[in-house]
């Protein structure tokens, strides 16, 4: 036994003596040029100096559009790494340089240096869709407009069929329209997932990268986990039910099938987007369903009636029934619109001051014109059977509704200033509420709801999958428990690992770690 103990003791001693002397965790002593500086002209090289010898693992340089610039491999002299500054990065603007090196014991050390040439530009805003121009944005926008149009037309036609009467080719409309709507909804879902993931490497054209990402299963699984996933699936299901109703051959489909299909198809729209993030969610959602349903009914009805009038098959009972129903449904549409507006805008001033408010005013004006025409229809032309005037008026209404749909598309692209907020709670019950928008605002509260006064607060963004190593941004106090940063946050659309750290004393620091998905819309200036 004694021999064994002796052997173990010698072994322990040997291990202790041979423990590596180089202490792990190299840290960056300085960089030349330094982090956050503005230089007149592009430097020849970027020098990183650490406090012990390191081994470079990888590095990436991204310009203001988010495109990656290739870096030549860097010579290492002990604790100093020199990267030759690429010629492709000589333009004025702000650049993000991310580095990752290994310390002597293979512990990785990483960080990001922000460097501006010429002018201190805003932080680079990068979206998966834009490679510097809006052209790559168009496929997603067109898809969205197409989906909305087809969905409203088909859903509205279904509602017309239920409430007013049949119309020729209704089976074809529901059948083909339903299938088309479902396909468009699913395509939109795939594109959404692709924009969330972002391209692995933004060096190719964004359009191709987007397409490649759509067939990536990861894009679909990410998209399905967002509210958009639930919405798209609901819409697609509703559309599929409508298609089923249309494809039932000679038989009359049960009204419930058409009703539920229309409800799901249109109701799905309320499960995501601005209305879904307004408060209270049930009110905004219900208002949106009523508004969209009424609008779809109106839109489809006009088309169907116009068709009937043109074909000379003036279905007088249908026209009268439509007119009577319109008296009830249009006011509902207006009330729902007002409810939505109060939920999405914070103050009446916002109507004039914000882009969203102004679009809303335009929509209101168009709606007013529509109501005037509709009133003329009802009281002047319909009772006297003035078919020609009716036809022209309905055509004019159709044009106005198309304009309204265009404005609605613009509204859906514009942030309504209910900025996206994330609320996270730590193990002790302290919460941070992070609002992202033109200003980054963090509200800190302890478990009993009182604001937390911190000595310093910083927010750290990391997105390893895009090669962006952790960046720390300091927040300044703007009120009790409120810390903000004026400038816009750099954002690749996609999922960021975020950490908010608040030092509340010499020895205490609170930390909240979470993931935040930044939508492409939120990154547009």
């Amino acid at each position, binding site marked *: *036994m004694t021999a064994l103990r002796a052997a*173990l003791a010698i072994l322990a001693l040997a291990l202790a003596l041979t423990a*590596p002397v180089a202490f792990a965790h190299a840290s960056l002593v300085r960089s030349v040029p330094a982090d956050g500086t503005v230089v007149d002209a592009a430097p020849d090289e970027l020098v990183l100096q650490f406090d012990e010898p390191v081994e470079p693992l990888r590095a990436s340089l991204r310009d203001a559009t988010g495109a990656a610039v290739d870096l030549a491999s860097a010579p290492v002299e002990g604790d100093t790494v020199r990267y030759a500054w690429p010629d492709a990065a000589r333009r004025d603007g702000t650049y993000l340089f991310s580095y990752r090196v290994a310390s002597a014991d293979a512990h990785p050390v990483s960080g990001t240096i922000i460097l501006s040439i010429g002018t201190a530009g805003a932080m680079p805003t990068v979206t998966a869709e834009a490679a510097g121009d809006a052209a790559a944005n168009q496929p997603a926008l067109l898809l969205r407009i197409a989906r909305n149009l087809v969905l409203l037309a088909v859903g509205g036609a279904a509602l017309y069929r239920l409430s007013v009467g049949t119309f020729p080719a209704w089976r074809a409309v529901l059948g083909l329209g339903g299938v088309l709507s479902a396909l468009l909804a699913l395509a939109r879902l795939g594109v959404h997932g692709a924009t969330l993931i972002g391209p692995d490497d933004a060096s190719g054209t964004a359009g191709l990268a987007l397409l490649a990402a759509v067939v990536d299963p990861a894009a679909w699984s990410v998209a399905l986990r967002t509210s958009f996933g639930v919405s798209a699936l609901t819409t697609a299901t509703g559309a599929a039910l409508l298609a089923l109703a249309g494809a039932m051959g000679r038989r009359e489909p049960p009204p419930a099938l058409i009703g539920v299909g229309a409800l799901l198809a249109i109701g799905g729209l309320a499960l995501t987007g601005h209305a879904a993030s307004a408060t209270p969610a049930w009110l905004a959602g219900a208002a949106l369903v009523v508004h969209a349903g009424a609008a779809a009914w109106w839109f489809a009805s006009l088309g169907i009636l116009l068709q009937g009038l043109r074909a000379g098959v003036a279905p007088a009972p249908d026209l009268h029934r439509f007119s009577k129903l319109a008296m009830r449904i249009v006011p509902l549409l207006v009330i729902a619109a007002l409810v939505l507006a109060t939920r999405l805008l914070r103050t009446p001033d916002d109507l004039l001051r914000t882009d969203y408010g102004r679009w809303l005013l335009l929509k209101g004006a168009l709606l007013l014109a529509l109501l005037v025409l509709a009133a003329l229809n009802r009281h002047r032309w319909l009772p006297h059977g003035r078919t020609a005037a009716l036809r022209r008026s309905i055509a004019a209404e159709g044009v106005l509704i198309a304009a309204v749909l265009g404005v609605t598309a613009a509204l859906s692209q514009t942030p309504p200033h209910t900025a996206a907020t994330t609320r996270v709670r730590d193990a002790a019950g302290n919460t941070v509420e992070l609002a992202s928008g033109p200003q980054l605002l963090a509200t800190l509260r302890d478990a009993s709801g009182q604001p937390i006064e911190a000595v310093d607060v910083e927010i750290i963004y990391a997105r390893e999958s895009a090669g962006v190593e952790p960046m720390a941004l300091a927040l300044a106090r703007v009120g009790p428990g409120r810390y903000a940063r004026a400038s816009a946050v750099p954002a690749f659309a996609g999922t960021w690992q975020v950490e908010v750290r608040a030092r509340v004393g010499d*020895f205490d620091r609170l930390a909240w770690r979470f993931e935040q998905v930044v939508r492409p819309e939120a990154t547009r200036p």
Partner: protein
Amino acid sequence: MSHTFRALAAVVAAAALPTAYAHVSLERPQAPTDSYYKAVLQVPHGCKGSPTVAVRVRIPEGILGVKPQPKPGWKVSITRVKLDKPIDAGHGNMIGERVSEVAWTDGDLSDEHFDEFRITMKLPDRPGTTLAFPTVQECKQGVTRWIELPDPAKPGVEPAEPAPLLQLLPKP
């Protein structure tokens, strides 16, 4: 506990040595509960190359009889707080306050050098728990705060600047 086992534990502990070196940490991160313990706080480097001028340690509650070891060239100070409930320390002594912070200041420890700061204390009777000694290292330029606690949601992942930890073992 057999002698062989203790020897084996020493081997394991020795093999685990290197990972602790990068941080300000305790030389002995484990100790039996309810015993007298000499904490040896190792400071292996300065703040990004800048020399260390002060080391301040917060003593967690439950620890009694705290005495820092003075160092030539450094000023040592002790901060005490009142206890909510006085403690009976035996021998007829009632203790009404405890040491909450120990600090060595006005020093100059170059980044090229290493030093240890010692405190004796009596550990509480809480086997199986871990005590944290958050430490602030002030340098000529900059401050490093070794105050992060492990994230319960991520066991096994060490924070970047962890507070020195002491694990209380069952009584032998």
